[in-house]
């Protein structure tokens, strides 16, 4: 079967249901990636408007829009831009197009289907924050995105939208398309910068906490996610008030969310931020339309593989960071993975633990060693070779990565209350904790699937090592 979705050229994307479209407004055109289509649909008008205003006024308007970063942490973009130290030059923009969080599928679509929107967003950010060079770092495994963005950049240069004296002004910026080479951890912003400097993609020690102060080549650097930047043309063109009119006060605008797994209609949806609930997303007619084969919902991952799991108990929580955090998880990168009643929970958790163990960069011991041990232990439990002692070891290893109580959801069935996000961590970045999160969630919310899977250590048979019967024989 080929990809599904409203349009043949937009795999998995659906725009039925009359929702506002800020970043996906051109996905309905087969030639959405071309400059002609972009210009015919209001493209680069936001940039023109921005260039008519003072940079600081554009910055103020983005700050007023409360546009939250879409990479995972959800930090306000306008505030982040303000962290660059005054009077230190040059400042750089690095675009994080290294989308690889399990379950996440949005930035690739934005790069493949509307590359000019991203380019315009980069230009607006550079103009507003005084960033004089932009590096667009695209995950290496996205061949089509590379082709589309490269073509769009060539066309934008040829027509005066990028490069020297943009649109006849004194605003001059190069945008350099950079090829990644496959490493999940590079999505962490300081690792992304290391990689861009030609190094192994390992996160930097903190402090300094923000690349905005010390980033690429030691200079102030703004790192923004693709979807974050893709929102800027709308804000620049229509103003922050038009943006905050959509969504809620704490979570304005829209978000792109991928719903995958055991649903009738898995897909990517641009949703109203802050108010759309997980129930809407998983069961709504214009969203994923419920669980496949008439099965029941067992659990779901609300915000990418790094997020603690939710149960049907949490379906009415909206896409709003604070409420999701109180309930014991996070919204992360906008990825909902749905498990129905047929799911083998320890095996499902194993796929994620394996991922994070594999993607550890090796810099922090708790992640490098702990992640690998979590993977090995869980693998033998799933294979039926685990013991009750293994379950304790998992918790001990987890404690060494995330000391103290872990965030988790409440469960009426188990009679447990939620513990809010976030966790404490002994590692520089979130890859280490992310290896523990899925197995912790699975063991907390479905303890019986683990206890029934393991044998008691003391009843294991001893292995005979003597070659001949003891005490005689022939």
């Amino acid at each position, binding site marked *: 079967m080929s990809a599904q979705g409203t349009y043949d050229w937009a795999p998995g994307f659906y725009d039925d249901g009359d929702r506002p479209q800020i970043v996906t407004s051109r996905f309905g055109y087969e030639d959405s990636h071309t400059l002609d289509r972009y210009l015919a649909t209001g493209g680069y008008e936001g940039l023109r408007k921005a260039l008519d205003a003072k940079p600081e006024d554009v910055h103020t308007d983005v700050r007023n829009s409360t546009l939250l970063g879409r990479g995972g942490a959800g930090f306000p973009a306008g505030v982040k831009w303000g962290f660059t130290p005054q009077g230190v030059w040059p400042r750089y923009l690095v675009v994080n197009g290294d989308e690889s969080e399990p379950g996440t599928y949005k930035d690739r679509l934005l790069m493949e289907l509307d590359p000019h929107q991203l380019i315009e967003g980069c230009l607006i950010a550079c103009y507003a924050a005084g960033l004089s060079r932009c590096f667009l770092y695209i995950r290496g495994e996205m061949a089509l995105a590379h082709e589309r963005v490269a073509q769009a950049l060539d066309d934008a240069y040829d027509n005066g939208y990028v490069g020297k004296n943009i649109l006849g002004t004194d605003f001059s910026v190069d945008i350099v398309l950079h090829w990644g080479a*496959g490493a999940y951890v590079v999505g962490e912003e300081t690792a992304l910068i290391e990689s861009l400097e030609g190094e192994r993609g390992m996160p930097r020690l903190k402090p300094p906490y923000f690349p905005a102060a010390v980033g690429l080549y030691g200079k102030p650097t703004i790192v923004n996610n693709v979807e974050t930047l893709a929102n800027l043309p709308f804000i620049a063109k229509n103003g922050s008030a038009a943006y905050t009119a959509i969504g809620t006060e704490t979570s304005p605008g829209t978000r792109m969310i991928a719903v995958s797994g055991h649903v009738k209609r898995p897909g990517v949806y641009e949703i109203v931020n802050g108010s759309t609930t997980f129930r809407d997303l998983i069961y709504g007619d214009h969203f994923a339309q419920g669980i496949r084969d008439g099965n029941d919902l067992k659990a779901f991952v609300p915000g990418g593989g790094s997020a603690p799991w939710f149960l049907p108990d949490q379906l009415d929580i909206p896409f709003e960071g604070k409420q999701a955090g109180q309930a014991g998880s996070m919204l992360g990168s906008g990825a909902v993975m749905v498990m129905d009643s047929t799911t083998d929970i320890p095996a499902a958790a194993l796929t994620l633990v394996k991922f994070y163990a594999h993607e550890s960069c090796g810099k922090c011991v708790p992640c490098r060693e702990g992640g690998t041990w979590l993977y090995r232990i869980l693998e033998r439990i799933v294979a039926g070779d685990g013991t009750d002692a293994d379950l304790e070891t998992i918790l001990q290893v987890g404690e060494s990565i995330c000391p103290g109580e872990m965030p988790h959801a409440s469960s009426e069935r188990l009679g447990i209350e939620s513990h809010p996000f976030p966790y404490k961590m002994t590692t520089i970045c979130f890859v280490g904790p992310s290896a523990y999160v899925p197995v912790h969630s699975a063991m907390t919310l479905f303890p019986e699937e683990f206890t029934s899977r393991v044998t008691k250590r003391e009843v294991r048979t001893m292995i005979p090592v003597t070659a001949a019967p003891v005490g005689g024989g022939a």
Partner: protein
Amino acid sequence: MTRLNDQNVALAREIIARYPKKKSALIPLVHLSQEQNGYVTEEAMRHIAELVEVTPAEVYGTASFYEMFRFEPTGKYLINMCGTMSCALMGAADLMHHAEHKLGIKAGSTTPDGLFTLQHAECQAACTEAPTLQVNYRHRYRVTPDEFDQLVDDLSSGKLEGEIPPHGTLGRNRQSIPADKAVGAVPPDEVDGAPGWVTITEADA
């Protein structure tokens, strides 16, 4: 022989010039060498070291960190089978089992004719269209066993040559910045002062 050829050296110099520091071009140049040779050779890494002015060990140190760089001959078509959660929930394990039978090799190896390398892969950012795979980093969605067979047959017969270039080629087109329009990369320590469009008040503050 496996150093970058003249055409690629010219391209490499163009790429290097885009960065304020030469070493930033290291990963793009390793890609370029993989495109030329099908995998990353020692000779190519030595050559790249000369071009970006670091030691060969530094080139290998960086290159060996990244999944996409392969240091041994690789099939013309590298088939990456996603096995992360969404694909696993939708039958990735069975599809991998089928793929191994169809190609007659275990994951992690190459067919004797050098045409296919099959391997496990992690999330490919296509989670709603599971199970997915990539051939030379080009997606295939909701793959059934029959479709996998058809794909292998089409690749073998050369039917997909226009669409899927040989392993190592990242894009069928690449960015080219026209010299007269480029702002140019200045070493970070040689930049003094704010860019032209930034208003004086902020630059002075």
